[in-house]
């Protein structure tokens, strides 16, 4: 019944809506993935820095490596949006 009403009133999400949702998913999921990975690395990096402060540079680099995931997500989101 509800489905019928929706079908009469047009699709629940039209093509643009699906695109927006897809772009949002691309950003959200990759953002979460980056955050998760950085959390794990960052914790370890701070642990290592407590032992030896000279590791700051290496720790910083290792911590920001997963940032690339969300950048890819952003690129994909923009591609979806402009396609």
């Amino acid at each position, binding site marked *: 019944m509800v489905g019928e009403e929706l079908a009469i009133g047009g699709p629940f999400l039209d093509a643009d809506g699906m695109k927006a949702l897809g772009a949002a998913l691309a950003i959200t999921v990759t953002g979460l993935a980056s955050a998760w990975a950085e959390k794990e690395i960052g914790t370890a990096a701070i642990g290592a820095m407590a032992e030896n402060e000279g590791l700051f540079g290496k720790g910083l680099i290792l911590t920001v490596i997963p940032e*690339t995931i969300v*950048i890819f997500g952003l690129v994909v989101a923009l591609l979806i949006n402009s396609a």
Partner: protein
Amino acid sequence: MSRPKEMTRAVIVGHKSILKDTIDSLHDTHLFHIEDFVEDESGFKISKPFKNAEEVSKKLVKIRSISNYLGIVKKEPVVQKTDSVLRDLDSKLDELDRAIATKTESIAQLENELKDLDSQKRELLPYLSINLDFDDYRGYESLKVFAGTIKGSLDGSQISSITKAYELYSDPQSKVVVLFVAKNDADRVYELLQSLGFRDLRVPERGGVPSELLRFIEQKEAEVTRKTESLRADIESLKVKYTDFILASDEVLSIESQKAELPLRIATSANTFIIEGWTPTENYDKVVSAVNSATNGKAYVTSLEIDEEEEEHVPVEYNNSKIAAPMQQIMDLYSRPKYTELDPSSVILITFPLMYGLILGDIGYAMILGAIALAIKKAVKSDAVKPLMDILIYCQVSTFIFGIIYGEFLGFSLASLHTAHGVVPGLIPGWETIVLFEGLGGEEFTFPVHRTHMVMTMIATTVIIGLLQLNLGFLLGFANISKHHGMKHAVLEKGSWLVIQLGVLVAAIGYLGGNSGLTYVGAGILVLGIVMLTMGEGIKGPIELPSLMGNALSYARIIAVGLSSIYIASTVNDIAFKMIWVDHSKISFLAVAAILVFILGHGLNSVLSIIAPGLHALRLQYVEFFGKFYEGGGRKYNPFGYIRKYTEE
């Protein structure tokens, strides 16, 4: 592009009688990095510290503990002569030590006294409202005195049911009771009291009326506090008086102890010593003549060949111009270059601010942050802060230039823009956006570059900029390898990456241009490149191929982080301006709030504008760029000597 300073390995040999002179002269030149001697089968041993070492370090410990206690901070140096400092050292140090010892001892005594007074005060406070002389509590033969607190309430009727012979004092507020009863009735009264939750209170031993005692104690407390304070003021004045002395003698003693302990780091036999180490080649002659003149030519100094294996462990001293020198901080944060490597400081002098400017690109923020950096550089004398501020200033210059290219000021667009929905006016009237050529995805490439309106084009542009920097990295790697492992290795390991990219480029042109012959040529070049790479790096080469795409795409963060900064800025602007123009006719409270929002919002974004573009630009250097050529792990050149601040010879 520079290499680290060329180093010479030098050995100084001599009789032990000239060891001290040699060490003094080396210390004064401050140019000789001494290699610690490790005992081996050669028969040489490390020596013992000089005789004065123990005494010097004892004094040093004393000075530092005093300095710690007084809380001496480094300050504008008053330069003193070393000899005069050394001459007065013992007497002044003793004097200071004694003064501080007696003062701290009396402070400790006074503090104990204060604690004592406090506990006495606390003891008598419950009795304050009863106000009986404490001597009245004691010394009875037939009377029993109960003094304490109860939980419930006690009145005469309860006791008079047991005995009539009593006297009761109580304070209903603090629930303190003092009850005098005949000894015969004491047990029964005690039972009654216990049912009321009675707890004994100690009666102060000192006789006297509580209120008077309290006044007396408070007087005494004030007196003791005053005395302590005057002692502390004395110590403070000692600090002022002796700060220069403490700083200077700390320095002199540190130098003495460095010299006295050097024999622990060098090789000696029964009568001779050998000091081995490194000095920049340009300073070698200076070291030789300094040692010769100090020892009348009795020491033998010579330079040694450096073999290839040793080259990896040569201490590294940067060799950069004054302009590029601040970038050494960024290098040290990652890892100092090896002696055999190119030092990329002068390359990141360009690429790091370039990336930062590409990300931030805003005239307003460039001026705010540039002014802050200049002010901090002027205000703070610290050698650690100055290079960082220099780097920040370089970055702001680049941000300013890109601010003009992007036409942005605090998130506002400076030039007007014609879009499908009409004309968006800019801040500067009359500055029209010019369309240069067609961009990607139906966008137009314009001047000034409106980043928010040409995202796809900017992604492509930044990736291309990334590819350029990556290839610069391959070229530097090529130079590094060809110098040390020969041209063949360089071509196979680094040149192959260029061949691969060329192959992809040719194939893409062929494919897009519909020229299938060119596509096959490109594919052929690509395969050749992969084969070269496999020969150069083994199987791990082809496995790393996709990383090239990942690295290049990673540069898309330039536009991504830049957009986030723009959106924050323009959101702040939107909120502030909507608030100001709620009512056109008059300036209201909202207008003030709008100014506040504007200032706070842009303040926040300014801080973010150091952190986000800074970290991302840094990461692009460290991960993507350095990954292509840089190894790092060089040892720091740390010459034997001391940078004097408070003393001179």
